[in-house]
């Protein structure tokens, strides 16, 4: 086994997991919401990027912006539909509605983009950086950098800005936030727009690593569950480190044992952690 190569693979994978999960982390942390359409929104982001590049001939960075815009719009529409259920924190309705919207997105995407696999090539995905005997593509390096930037910007926004404070008020106590003059509905809408844009960004960055299909769904982003829960529900830092840990675990488990069982093994670890520390790894002891 090439240790350095596995380390690189693990780090890239870990950042990819963290980036794919970030929208859910905020969603769960702020709005106590789940989105089972996350996988299809990821798929849509990947296809929007692909279409903007190969259909419209737009440069990759512009294509990312297009995908994020569409993602945010889908998030807004989705949240607008679910607003009442959100305000009532009716989780069962929200689960079913997001699951349903996921299938609608799948159907719509299959109609428009067809069911054949596509390759999302970017200027970065076809060139390698060589480090001794190991290598990674510029795309993979970009995943790592973009993820770190997104996490830092998000953390600073939540901790240091007025918008961040309002979001944290709603996260802790939406009812009390109303009395502080916060328009809670708008915060929920904003958080869902962020979820849509964030998962589209993740898709535009991570999608080029594998062929993309309109039938990609939650399986494609299944590690999101593990990252979000392992990181401590709603914890931004926690989900970053959980993503990283999970990436390294996946790379080394795959290299040492078998890639076929990594998902099962990851969930086994998740269940064990949940039994021992129900709040996740990053939660403070209270």
């Amino acid at each position, binding site marked *: 086994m090439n240790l350095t190569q596995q380390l690189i693979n693990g780090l890239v994978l870990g950042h990819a997991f963290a980036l794919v999960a970030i929208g859910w982390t905020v969603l769960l942390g702020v709005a106590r919401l789940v989105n089972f359409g996350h996988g299809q929104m990821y798929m849509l982001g990947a296809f929007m990027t692909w279409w903007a590049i190969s259909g419209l001939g737009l440069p990759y960075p512009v294509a990312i912006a297009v995908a994020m815009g569409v993602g945010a719009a889908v998030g807004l529409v989705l949240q607008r539909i679910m607003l009442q259920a959100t305000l009532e924190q009716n989780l069962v309705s929200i689960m079913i509605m997001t699951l349903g919207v996921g299938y609608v997105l799948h159907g719509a995407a299959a109609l428009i983009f067809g069911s054949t696999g596509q390759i999302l090539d970017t200027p970065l995905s076809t060139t390698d950086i060589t480090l001794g005997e190991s290598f990674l593509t510029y795309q993979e390096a970009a995943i790592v950098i973009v993820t770190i930037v997104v996490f830092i910007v998000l953390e600073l926004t939540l901790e240091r800005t007025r918008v961040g404070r309002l979001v944290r008020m709603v996260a*802790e106590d939406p009812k009390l936030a109303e009395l*502080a*003059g916060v328009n809670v509905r708008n915060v929920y809408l904003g958080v869902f727009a962020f979820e849509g844009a964030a998962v589209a960004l993740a898709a535009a960055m991570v999608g080029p690593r594998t062929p993309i299909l309109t039938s990609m769904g939650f399986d494609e982003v299944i590690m999101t569950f593990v990252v979000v829960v392992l990181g401590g529900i709603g914890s931004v830092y926690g989900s970053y480190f959980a993503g990283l840990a999970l990436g390294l675990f996946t790379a080394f488990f795959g290299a040492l044992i078998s890639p076929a069982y990594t998902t099962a093994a990851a969930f086994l670890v998740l269940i064990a952690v949940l039994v021992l520390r129900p709040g996740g790894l990053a939660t403070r002891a209270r």
Partner: protein
Amino acid sequence: MSAVVLRVDGLTVAYGGNTALSLDVLEVHAGEVLGVVGANGAGKSTLVNAIAGWSRGKPRVSGRVVLEGRDLSASPAHERAREGLLLVPEGKLVFAEMTVDENLSVPGGVRVGPGRRYYDREAVFELFPRLKERRGHRGGQLSGGERQMLGIGRALMLGPRMLMLDEPSIGLAPRLVSAVLETMRTLARDGLTVLLVEQNVRAAIEVVDRLVLLERGRIVLQGPAAQMRDDPRIAAAYLGTSEA
């Protein structure tokens, strides 16, 4: 008599099938401290919550709430807050995970207008020096009295036309009770209109101008504090002159 800041008409509140509150008219005048007193379950919190358009439960509310001529009956709670109709609720009234400073941050869109007194952070710290000492502490680390101060401070920073406090004395040591209630007088001297809900009638009667007595969701008595003090019903029921 000074101008009416708040007028409530035909306000009824029901939880499930049970009517918790039924009022014909309630008026609050500019610059006064109005006390609303009554036993547990008399509808005191229900009243201020309904005025604020707010509840942690799911009440059915009907009636009119008019703040300085503006009908706010259809406005959601955050809009009423932005219009200067501010409630410091009972129980959980600060953000426990956020620092004192962060608790004192205000969303955009607060309109400063005539009849509104806007307090900035420094003015709040001047009123409650204790909060300044604790500004880096999280809400959850504060004592009960400090939480009250923080809740009041947050409301003041939103530019109140009227400030409503729901049982600010609950769970506080007697010395703190009078300190918090004295603050109401200070604010009223500045020209603020205050609606104070209290179960502690003995303490409330010292600081309010006018007193309203609620029983089973209805106003059964109201008048100037001095007169109410001598009313046998108040004396007997709440000041503990008979069986206490």
